[in-house]
């Protein structure tokens, strides 16, 4: 198992290299001079030169990349241009709300999807099934930020039972302020999950071992959960993993709808301050986060699938 994970990690190295290259190139695809873009049109030549030197922009590009890489290896993501502190400490300060939101929303999405898929798969080709199968078609078309604003309108403004934004100060208020954002993200993810999960469940229900379990006289509910759901969970975990990139992208947007002090909000704020190192650092962290989830998904699938072991 350890050797297997080690092999997977080594296979990830070229992708990691590519990611750093993309993030590094962000500064260099900017039209014109990034120093000029940052300082504005009234900047003096000396200040431009000083900033270019400070950013290392006066070095040849391959050398700049090597300097950037050697910084990354030491865990140095650069200095924020606006806040003046290290990008690493800024990211560390915003990481927890994002991870918390990711965890809550994926749990919620997985839970709702399993319930809906179970209902749809046990009553195939009925009205309930057709209704559940229509969810992806509608859900696909709903912008997450709009769902978020509607939720604020209903539960925050109209009923006033949940906070309209912010993160609160203690664990209870954290949870309260994460409910609506998690629901908004789940609305975006559930449609994708239900479709695949239902198909996986139907396939599992057609298997011989399910027929055998039924013939043994096991209760239908235990056949469904112990046999069908367990075997359908492999494709389901896979789909959840593939969706994670989408999920992380949604947190970025939804944090800005609900003013949650996470990475997504930090990134958008940095964009408006033209704070290049912070934007680069967050893009890098998001990509690495996604890669870790991909890896965990594959490992989880192999653990669930006893045939592979």
């Amino acid at each position, binding site marked *: 198992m350890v050797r297997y994970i080690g092999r997977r990690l080594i296979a990830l190295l070229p992708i990691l290299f590519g990611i750093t290259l993309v993030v590094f190139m*962000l500064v260099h695809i900017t039209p014109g001079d990034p120093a000029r*873009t940052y300082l504005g049109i009234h900047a003096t030549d000396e200040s431009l030169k000083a900033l270019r030197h400070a950013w290392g922009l006066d070095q040849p590009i391959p050398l700049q990349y090597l300097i950037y890489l050697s910084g990354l290896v030491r865990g140095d993501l650069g200095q924020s241009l606006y806040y003046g502190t290290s990008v690493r400490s800024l990211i560390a300060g915003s990481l927890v709300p994002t991870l918390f939101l990711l965890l809550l929303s994926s749990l919620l999405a997985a839970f709702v999807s399993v319930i809906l898929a179970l209902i749809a798969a046990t009553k195939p080709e009925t009205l309930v099934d057709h209704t559940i199968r229509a969810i992806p078609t509608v859900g696909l078309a709903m912008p997450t930020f*709009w769902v978020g604003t509607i939720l604020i309108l209903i539960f925050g403004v109209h009923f006033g039972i949940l906070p309209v934004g912010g993160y609160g100060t203690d664990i209870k208020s954290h949870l309260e302020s994460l409910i609506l954002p998690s629901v908004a993200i789940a609305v975006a993810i559930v449609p994708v999950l239900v*479709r695949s999960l239902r198909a996986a469940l139907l396939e599992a229900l057609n298997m011989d071992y399910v027929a055998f379990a039924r013939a043994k006289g096991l209760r239908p509910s235990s056949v469904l959960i112990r046999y069908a759901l367990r075997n359908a969970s492999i494709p389901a975990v896979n789909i959840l993993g593939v969706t994670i990139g989408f999920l992380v992208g949604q947190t970025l947007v939804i944090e800005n709808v609900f003013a949650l002090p996470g990475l997504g909000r930090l990134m958008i704020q940095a964009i408006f301050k033209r704070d290049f190192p912070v934007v680069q650092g967050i893009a890098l962290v998001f990509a690495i986060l996604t890669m870790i989830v991909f890896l965990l998904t594959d490992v989880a699938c192999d653990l669930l699938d006893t045939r592979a072991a």
Partner: protein
Amino acid sequence: MGVRTSIAARGKLLSPGRRRSGAAARFWGAGRAVRANPTLFAGVIIVCLTIAVAVLAPILAPFDPIDQDLTHALAGPSGSHWLGTDSLGRDVFSRIVWASRIDLAVAFASVVAPFVVGTAVGLVVGYVGGRLDAIVARMADVVVAFPVYVLIIALVFALGPGVASIFIAIAIVSWVPYMRIVRGETRILRSRAFVEAARVGEFSHIRILLRHIAPNVISQPIVYASSDVIRDILAIATLGYLGLGVPPPAPEWGAMIADGQEYFSTDWMLAVGPGVAVVVTGFGLALVGDGLARAWRIDR
């Protein structure tokens, strides 16, 4: 489908007298097509309606979408302003109508480049294989490692605001699924008998790719494109919402929702209205995608 047409053909042969001619036959044919695939039909109608709204915007919209009337700012729905006015006194209904032009045009246009590039690269890579295939696969892995919106937003930021940046950012991110779909299909077809036969016939590789393989794989990227348009509409609206989209004062659904969110407790229509427009458009396109997938028997 095959059975039905053969029965119809037999009917024609047996009783030439009952053959419907001209317009009637076409009408009945269309009716049967609708019943065979109501999803596609409903989707096409919704999409045609939204396109009609975009094209006829100058006629449909009662007011100029960027004309400000500060004395009538934030006026609620009324006879002249059906959905009220926004904080600058602009007619919300007119802005939603005009925004359909921008959102639809940018979304449809931004599907073209990824479709063409992804399909072409997928064909070549799937056919040639080998080292080129491995390199492209790694490139795709790198793009996919970034959460979609993270890379699009970072690219739009780096490239500077404007429609051109949106096109480029979406193209860089979304060629990958087209490439992967087409590559997979091409690899399967490469070893099929009719391709082998063409190769034995010493046709050029380009001819084999374009005349023998491409026509057999093209339906898959087309179905994917119909749902990709939705993703692009959402991406454009999201960028607009975050303040990184089509620059103001041009009316754009996402930016309108962001503006409206500030006046939530009093004028909720400002934020809800443009969202409904996005949902209706996306729903129509989703139906088209489902319908096409059904008509071409593509499993999704």
